[in-house]
């Protein structure tokens, strides 16, 4: 072997081990970089010149990862996003309908009946009448507040969806940009793959769906219903189209050029689907049920009230009215006449005459508390209120349990990924020391060969 070949051998060794030092250094530098997957360098022996002498060549650096785990993480992120968003949104919806005590509506209905019960014992007493009217007024306030709060939560869900849509659009654009960078120069920077995987995970957390890497190296991201959000170097825009969903709120649209896909009802994972579930299903059902309860309760009370007579005037007066259109939870109101003059509260039976101590109608009004006036004639007003509040609570509880399960699943997969691809400072420091020592040894080898050459030259 020639002296030059020996010098090349030494030089290659120094380069190879310096590359190892650099790789270990890069891993240490990125120990806290989100989504970074550690790189490893393989060194392979090579034959140089005569069989007895060999060299070293670098293989890598390559990322330590598995596509299988990446896809599982995207799926888990989607489910976790869905569960988390559902849980937060449904907790808020539960507070909205439950009020301060969690059962404001149930209490208000009971207080209405209580007012009628007391009225039956003292139909001429003005303070008792005022108490009954106050109870009726409070009931209308509780219904209105529940309806307003619920609508506000649904509006807030729309706002959150708008922010999520913007974030999803940005992530999709990031993936498509990274697709371009990776395919233009595949060996350029392995960390680009890490960033792309991280973006895919975050996008899945928002919209559900999953990514796949095609043979051309490009990532494609597809959500439920086969709607493509990222196709190679092209990414769609995710927007909220105000008021166009069947619920009357914003529809989630994926727009790619001339193609517009409404995915509001088809998304089955991610935070967006979680928000939609609260907004268009649970809260919508609760709002509809509250409206039905307000109407049936008001109708039952009004029918009986109109059959009676107050202290000063004739019959056929409703206790509950609507502030606008049909009676709903939001429009339920108290008769302004009765509100101003509790003597108009009809405690006596029709035909009893003015200032009558008769309490027949008050008794009948109080008896409505056990009448099956709601739920299609199967439930009392109190039981229906409990059912409505309980349904929202149950949905929130289920979402919280799901969130716990998905949190565990995501944590478990993250732990697996970290175990495989995470940077251990101890390992990298050890590897760093090994490569550094080897580089020093290679440098010593080069020095030795250099001395040999000098000796030779001097003798010549």
């Amino acid at each position, binding site marked *: 072997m020639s002296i030059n070949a020996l010098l090349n051998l030494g030089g290659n060794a120094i380069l190879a081990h310096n590359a190892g030092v650099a790789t270990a250094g890069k891993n240490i530098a990125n120990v806290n970089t989100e989504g970074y997957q550690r790189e490893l360098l393989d060194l392979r022996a090579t034959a140089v010149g005569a069989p007895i002498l060999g060299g070293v060549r670098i293989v890598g650096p390559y990322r330590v990862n598995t596509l299988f785990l990446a896809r599982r993480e995207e799926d888990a992120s989607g489910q976790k996003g869905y569960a988390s968003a559902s849980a937060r949104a449904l907790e808020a919806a*539960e507070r909205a309908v439950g009020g301060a005590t969690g059962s404001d509506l*149930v209490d208000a209905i*009971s207080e209405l009946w209580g007012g009628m019960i007391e009225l039956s014992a003292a139909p001429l*007493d003005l303070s008792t009448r005022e108490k009954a009217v106050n109870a009726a007024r409070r009931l209308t306030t509780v219904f209105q507040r529940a309806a307003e709060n619920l609508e506000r939560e649904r509006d807030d869900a729309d706002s959150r969806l708008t922010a999520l849509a913007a974030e999803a659009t940005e992530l999709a654009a990031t993936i498509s940009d990274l697709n371009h960078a990776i395919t233009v120069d595949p060996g350029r920077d392995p960390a680009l793959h890490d960033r792309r995987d991280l973006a895919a995970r975050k996008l899945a957390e928002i919209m559900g769906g999953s990514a796949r890497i095609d043979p051309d190296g490009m990532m494609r991201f597809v959500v439920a219903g086969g709607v493509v959000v990222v196709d190679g170097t092209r990414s769609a825009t995710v927007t909220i189209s105000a008021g166009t969903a069947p619920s009357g709120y914003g529809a989630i649209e994926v727009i790619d050029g001339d193609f517009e896909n409404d995915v509001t009802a088809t998304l089955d994972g991610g935070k967006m689907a979680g928000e939609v579930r609260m907004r268009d299903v649970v809260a919508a059902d609760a709002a509809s049920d509250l409206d039905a309860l307000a109407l049936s309760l008001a109708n039952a009370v009004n029918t009986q009230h109109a059959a009676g007579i107050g202290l000063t005037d004739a019959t056929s007066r409703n206790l509950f009215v609507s502030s606008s259109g049909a009676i709903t939870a939001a429009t339920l109101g108290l008769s302004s006449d009765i509100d101003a003059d509790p003597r108009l509260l009809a405690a006596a039976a029709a035909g009893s005459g*003015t200032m009558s101590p008769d309490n027949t109608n008050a008794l009948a009004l109080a008896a409505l508390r056990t009448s099956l006036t709601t739920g299609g004639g199967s439930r009392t007003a109190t039981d229906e209120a409990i059912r409505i509040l309980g349904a929202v*609570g149950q949905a929130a509880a289920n979402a919280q349990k799901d969130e716990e399960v998905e949190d565990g699943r995501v944590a478990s997969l993250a732990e697996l990924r*970290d175990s495989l691809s995470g940077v*251990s*400072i101890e390992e990298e*420091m050890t590897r760093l020391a090994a490569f550094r020592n080897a580089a020093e040894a290679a440098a010593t080898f080069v020095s030795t060969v250099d001395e040999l050459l000098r000796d030779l030259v001097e003798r010549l």
Partner: protein
Amino acid sequence: MRITERRMTEIVNASLEKTRAEAAKKAQELSSGVKLTRASQDGVGWAEAARARARRLTADAHESTIARSRERLQAQEGALAGIGNVLERATEIAIQGANAATGDSRTLLADEIRRLMSAGIQAANTKGNDGEYLMATSSGTTAPFDTGTGAYSGSSTVREVDVGPELTVGAKVPGSVLQLSAGPPVVNIFTVLDRIADALEANDPDDVAAELDNLEQGRENVANARGDIAAYLAALQQADEARSDTVINTTQIFDDNVATDVVEAATGLARAEAAVEAARVAGQQMLQLVAGFLR
């Protein structure tokens, strides 16, 4: 499995977050005295507590109704007792007037009958503490018995009140209990007293004697009415006892489902705080392990 330093930090943070959240929850339960406020915490317990609250609110209304009705019935009982005394004395006078008294004595007796009649009408027109005429059924603000003739204006309806689940009890006896004949003409005890007074003034012992059976009927009506009142009061008492049971029962449900068990919460808080401290110490040791290697 490889555990990286980042993973160790995440484990420490997650552990601290979880233990702190648990400690905060226990502290909140302890300070508020309430552990269940939402259906999402415990759907079954919440629904049970909500129904118990509804029953309790209704029971509170019944408490007021029962107390007011009891007061009214007791006042009516007092008024009827007074009317009963009037009829007792009137009977004595009538017996006297039907027998050996002379014309002048009958005049005096007639005067006393008229005074008794007036006292009886006054008793029958007694108002309750809320200003409502106790025996009125057609108008609470107009005296049910004419102050001069004692004629009754009203019905024979017993006013009932709601005192329990699907339970009503009589709470006001109508003035018609003093009626002896529906007529026409309508005859009540004051009609009889008036006729007795007229007969005494006319010095007609036979007419006086003819009213003795009516006086006895009147006393019997008053006794029956007082008996009805006693029965209503007994029913109110029973309803009140059932209401008390409801209060005890609903309180128990609150204690079981909603209220914080102070001892349990305090113990839980102590455990949670210990867990926080343990997580903190474990975290410190983990981080020292990492830092130690780097040194």
